[in-house]
């Protein structure tokens, strides 16, 4: 590494500290958002979680307050039309709940001319349509961003830079954006065991969005390069048995993470004529690593407003690209302890390779009531069909027991969203 990857983040923090010295013209704005939510699932074997960054969620017969509840606080300082700074802190149930991780954004923005923004620091990973405000319940029509797609998104922010340029095309507005950054955070393994892995990766990409009358269309491509090795112990074990186990080398290669890449291709469409609205999004996740399951994720939602009330329907699906990998141990039997070791490794390899699969679909109905200024109440009922070979958006109640049957869950969610 030429320089510390935390450099943009640290620089932004430094600049934020000197902002108050910038002068009396600086405008300070404090704002925030909060959600108090409860999610109730009726499946006895699976635990509902909002996304793969969560290590806990809703069990059968016990609603989860922690899935959707959060509090966000934001400070914004505009010290001139060109220069601005922002910090956003979000308190919620997260796997690695350090203060550093609670800082969602912390950046300095430079706007040399209207329509061109350069930002440096900790930035929102703007890969999907709702990425930059997916935690702001008041800003979205549903209780949470649709699970079949947003459940996979582990990347909330990165430390780096982005550039955004706006073009006016008659009545339409085109935005083009490019970003680059690094992330180094701890994620749960997904086995409901309080274990985590610290993943270091670089992310870069570009996106474009077009707004025209009631329509909004958007396309983004983003690539993630893994810098860390997460399967060394398992691969070492496999390689030590390679002389006796022909497939061990193949599995070992599949398990590699360091310097491997995966990518997101996203398209999104939104229409809102203030009476009816619809939104759809499709993401194809391509991957060189078996630990990030390649697949297709999509949702579609349509809603109608009646004054301060609104109702909506939504449907979504997630489909892995590759079949389940059956790990076969060598046919000849060895003497113990080698035989035991092979059995254990075969099981661990299969669990690791297939545990990341996501295969499910859902449909649901919901309502939103804007009962007071900047406050909304929502109720949402969804039916999930989860394939036994693709449960990774959920946790297993008993992580030692494999899921042998396809699963269903009726998820009822209530939320109170406010902004201030």
């Amino acid at each position: 590494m030429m320089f510390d990857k935390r450099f943009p983040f640290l620089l932004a923090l430094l600049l934020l500290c000197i902002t108050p010295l910038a002068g009396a013209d600086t405008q300070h704005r404090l704002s925030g958002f909060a959600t108090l939510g409860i999610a109730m699932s009726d499946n006895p074997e699976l635990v509902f979680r909002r996304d793969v960054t969560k290590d806990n969620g809703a069990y059968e017969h016990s609603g989860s307050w922690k899935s959707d509840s959060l509090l966000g606080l934001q400070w914004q300082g505009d010290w001139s039309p060109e220069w601005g700074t922002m910090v956003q802190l979000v308190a919620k149930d997260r796997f690695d709940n350090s203060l550093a991780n609670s800082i969602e954004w912390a950046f300095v923005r430079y706007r040399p001319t209207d329509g061109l923004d350069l930002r440096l620091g900790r930035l929102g990973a703007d890969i999907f349509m709702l990425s930059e405000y997916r935690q702001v319940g008041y800003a979205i029509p549903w209780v949470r961003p649709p699970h079949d797609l947003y459940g996979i998104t582990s990347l909330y922010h990165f430390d780096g830079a982005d550039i955004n340029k706006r073009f006016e095309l008659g009545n339409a507005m085109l935005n083009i954006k490019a970003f680059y950054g690094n992330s180094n955070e701890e994620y749960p393994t997904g086995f409901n065991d309080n274990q985590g892995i610290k993943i270091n990766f670089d992310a870069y990409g570009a996106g474009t969005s077009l707004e025209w009358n009631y329509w909004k269309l958007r396309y983004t491509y983003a690539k993630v390069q893994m810098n860390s090795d997460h399967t060394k112990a398992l691969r070492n074990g496999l390689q030590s048995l390679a002389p006796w186990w022909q497939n061990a080398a193949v599995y070992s290669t599949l398990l590699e993470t360091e310097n491997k890449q995966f990518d997101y291709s996203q398209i999104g469409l939104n229409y809102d004529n203030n009476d009816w609205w619809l939104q759809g999004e499709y993401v194809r996740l391509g991957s060189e690593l078996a630990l990030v399951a390649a697949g297709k994720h999509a949702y579609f939602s349509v809603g109608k407003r009646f004054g301060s009330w609104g109702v909506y329907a939504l449907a979504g699906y997630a489909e892995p690209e590759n079949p389940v990998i059956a790990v076969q141990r060598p046919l000849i039997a060895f003497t113990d302890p080698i035989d035991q070791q092979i059995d254990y490794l075969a099981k661990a390899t299969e669990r690791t390779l297939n545990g990341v699969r996501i295969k499910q679909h859902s449909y649901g109905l919901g309502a939103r009531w804007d009962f007071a200024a900047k406050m909304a109440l929502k109720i949402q009922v969804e039916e999930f069909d989860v394939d036994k070979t693709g449960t990774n958006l959920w946790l297993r109640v008993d992580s030692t027991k494999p899921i042998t049957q396809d699963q269903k869950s009726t998820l009822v969610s209530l939320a109170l969203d406010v902004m201030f």
Partner: protein
Amino acid sequence: MMKTFLLMIALMCSGLAQAEILVIVNAQNPVITLEKKQVMDLFMGRVSAFPNGQSAETLDLKTGMPLRARFYKTLTGKNEAQVDAYWATLIFAGRMSPPKQLADEQTLIAEVAANTEAIAYVTRQALPKNVKIVTELAARE
């Protein structure tokens, strides 16, 4: 009887006139007139400058004030909750600063009179010399 009739007519006319919203800037602002779409782009955070490139500061009334609701409904067709939800997507993404909210129309006018970058909306009324109208909106009730 005739007097009452005339008074009623006068009241009705003033009622109609009251329904009009004036979009105002500082008299020293070189902008002469703005189209409805340009006002919308400014107040919905799509742009942060006047068409001539000079930076703009949008001024707003506090949430819940009837004129605010009428202004946004006329401009965008959205009710206040929709406008606030829309702004939440920009504010909490760190993209744009929301319009500065002030307590009443007189404060808006005073701020526009003092700030050459300011733009605000008020009901039809007599305005001081250092404030000028760039467009009028026929309010949708």
